[in-house]
């Protein structure tokens, strides 16, 4: 598969994503500078973590107007698979590719640690290799991960199973105590209604190989590859 990793000024997890797809999973990876306006021949796009444009104004607020974002939007509208991790998630929200907005963490702290997240929907293109309800240990590293959306949108997302990942105890219980940032409904990751754009605050690229002591994150990338392989078949199923 051919994976595009977008590089904004201030991205800092771009090479981690490249490493996982290229060296761990043996895929072809193209690094895409944010000034690019054409994305041809890509199977999936990753918006990596980091601090694009220094997080000035709001996280992702300026990156969303980068030249490349027009092409990313087109790609997503055409059904292309887009994964936004951390700052990438924040950019997807600002760009309107996912509903809602990020607020400062409730504690006001930048939090960097391993957390348990529950796969609430294992029937997506990004979680297909997980078991439903499976608990993944994936680190977060952010100051603005306090997800917010209006009650109507939240209810619609809950009804559509668009809340894909939620912060939980290691046993898989979703409780307010394990919510690290004040995120609505313990949300750690959401998907769009069409099922081709996922945003998540935890960093799967930081735990995708055994040598790092944890390869839970690899499941997200494997799911993407599996889904891409079976894309035609899957599209038919969605159509039916």
């Amino acid at each position, binding site marked *: 598969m051919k994976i595009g990793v977008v590089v904004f000024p201030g991205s800092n997890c771009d090479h981690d994503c490249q490493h996982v797809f290229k060296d761990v999973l043996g895929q072809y990876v193209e690094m895409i500078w944010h000034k690019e306006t054409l994305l041809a021949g890509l199977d999936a796009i990753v918006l990596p973590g980091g601090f694009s444009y220094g997080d000035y*104004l*709001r996280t992702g*607020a*300026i990156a969303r*107007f980068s030249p490349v974002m027009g092409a990313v939007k087109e790609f997503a509208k055409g059904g292309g698979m887009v994964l936004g991790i951390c700052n990438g998630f924040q950019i997807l929200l*600002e760009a309107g590719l996912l509903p*809602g*907005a990020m*607020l*400062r*963490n*409730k*504690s*006001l702290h930048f939090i960097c640690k391993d957390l348990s997240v529950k796969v609430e929907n294992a029937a997506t293109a990004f979680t297909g290799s997980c078991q439903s309800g499976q608990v993944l240990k994936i680190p977060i590293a952010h100051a603005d991960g*306090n997800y*917010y*959306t*209006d009650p109507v949108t939240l209810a619609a997302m809950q009804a559509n199973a668009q809340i894909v990942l939620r912060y939980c105890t290691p046993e898989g219980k979703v409780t307010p105590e394990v919510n690290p940032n*004040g995120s609505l409904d313990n949300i750690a990751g959401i998907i769009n209604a069409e099922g081709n754009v996922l945003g998540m605050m935890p960093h799967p690229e930081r735990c995708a190989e055994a040598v790092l002591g944890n390869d839970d994150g690899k499941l997200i990338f494997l799911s993407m590859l599996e889904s891409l392989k079976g894309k035609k078949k899957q599209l038919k199923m969605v159509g039916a």
Partner: protein
Amino acid sequence: MRVRESIHAALRRGVREELRGGTVKAKIHVTLKQGILDPQGKAIEHALDSLGFKNAGNVRVGKYMEVDVDEKDKVKAEAEVKAMCEKLLANTIVEEYRYELTA
């Protein structure tokens, strides 16, 4: 004589400004909407309370921005400032904005 010179200077300046087309200064405030938790505001509120400012409450933290808009027509200038707020300066899902325009 000196007075007359300065009048001439002022007139020249005036003409130049007329030709340049006058600038409007927008003073823009962006804050979190009421009802959305403002953790920074809360932290400041606690600090004020512990300093003995018992009357202080409902502290909201926001951003203040100044933008010079090179547009002589005030109505057009305001429309432009509003568009800036809607498109970039505020995220209207969680924030509200207000502005004042001065010459």
